[in-house]
């Protein structure tokens, strides 16, 4: 595993294949929690945290239970991956919430309600499934470095999500003080701005003629 691959994964999932802008995952918090900067940042931090943890646990589940070549059962159970991943992500988030409530009350206060909120966020399940599609060989033995790659992709997908969410929150805070036509106030102008942002981010993937 060389460094350039990891670098490409990081840049790729933050800017080019951004989860919100390019893959359209996690649109609900993108519109819902982007009203002010503080909560957007809190949500972003919680998403980075959960995505990294989810990438780790789903890799373990997939490798040791579901994938035929490496499974302890020796059976191909990959069709179970969606339900198994949802189950494990939900349990993981609950578990992590308990742990940090005990061990780090300050962190618990900062993440607050966002932690249980993102249990059911499609972006978290999305990153786990995309990890498999990008770094595993579906029918053969897994690539040796897939574990590290999965975690890196999970974390940087979270960073990308935070980036877009914070940018959006910044724009929407400014919007509060600008003159917007009455019919465009609130949601409509936010959607237009989301569209403009998506266009801008598309620039990263380059133009093809």
């Amino acid at each position: 595993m060389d460094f350039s691959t990891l670098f490409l994964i990081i840049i790729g999932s933050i800017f080019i294949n951004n989860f919100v802008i390019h893959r359209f995952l996690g649109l609900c918090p993108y519109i819902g929690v982007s009203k002010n900067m503080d909560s957007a940042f809190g949500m972003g931090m919680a998403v980075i945290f959960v995505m990294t943890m989810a990438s780790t646990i789903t890799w373990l589940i997939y490798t040791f239970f579901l994938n035929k070549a490496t499974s302890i059962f020796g059976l191909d159970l990959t069709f179970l991956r969606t339900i198994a991943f949802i189950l494990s992500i939900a349990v993981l988030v609950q578990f992590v919430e308990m742990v940090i409530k005990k061990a780090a009350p300050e962190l618990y206060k900062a993440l607050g309600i966002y932690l249980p909120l993102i249990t059911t966020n499609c972006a978290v399940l999305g990153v786990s499934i995309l990890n498999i599609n990008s770094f595993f060989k579906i029918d053969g033995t897994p690539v040796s470095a897939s574990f590290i790659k999965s975690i890196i992709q999970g974390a940087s997908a979270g960073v990308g999500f935070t980036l877009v969410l914070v940018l959006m929150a910044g724009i929407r805070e400014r919007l509060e003080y600008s003159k917007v036509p009455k019919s465009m106030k609130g949601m409509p102008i936010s959607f237009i701005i989301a569209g403009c942002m998506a266009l801008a981010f598309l620039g990263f993937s380059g133009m093809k003629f």
Partner: protein
Amino acid sequence: MLLVSIIVLSVLGILFGIALSFASKVFHVDIDPKIEHIEEVLPGVNCGACGYPGCTGYAKAIVVSGADPTLCAPGGHDVAIQIAKIMGTKASKKERNIAVIHCQSGGINNTNIKFENKGIPTCQAAILLSNGQNACTYGCLGYNDCYRVCPFDAISIDENNMRIIDEDKCTGCGKCVEACPRDLIELVPISKKVHIQCMSHDKGKDAKAKCGNNTACIGCGLCVKKCPIDAITLENNLATINYEKCVSCGLCATVCPTKAIEDRIQSRPQPIIIEEKCIGCTICAKKCPVNAIDGELKKAHKIDEEKCIRCGICIDVCPKKAIEVKS
């Protein structure tokens, strides 16, 4: 295959369930039930008037570090009693504060402006541009920052774009006091009914010329001389009422040449002592700010109607309810 997948999922579920229930035991955090009880009693508006971060923070502060249970402004005395009950202590009676705006200008038709401001329509932004667009550098900017920040809808805006504080709805949380960049709003006990509605330190002539409402304090000092209990002080061309002393008699409002003093009590009836009920305890005579009550111990007292300023303090202090107002 079918059987294995069922088994795998159920084993996963059971394992996770055991892990979670185990974790909830190991990582159990003890929370004092009093905190939850107090949180339920508190209004939950998170205004911060108590000085703690939100209602949860205040509830914690009461239980953990023994904070004063009477600090909740929106909840008032009722909540203080309930908190004291939960904590097993007694709540002292605390008078409710309300916000008072010390300016009568700031509307569409009663503000003199230096220039037209087309920038961001908030007071905070307006004051950054040449110290505000209105001629008076002490007066209300008129962009309603206080109205937007009020969590209780206690501030309304009339047709003239003036801000009106609803005494019933205002809880004295102090959010508007913080929001006003000109420091025009003050928290005053609700029993105080006479207010000087100007904050201008300009010299008399300037102050009057700049005020769009013509009700600026010109620093003439008539109110200071008229006040029977010396509750008004004149400093830097501005008279201010010391609310700790003020008895809301309203005499200052009658002499103010520019009508800068507002008296919220419509009429003050003359109190009289009913001789049959009076036991001559002299409490009223001691409490009278202008010594208008005379009488020997254990004999019926009398009010000198020429001296009396009709503040009504004697009515409240009389233990036998022997003082009434003339109908």
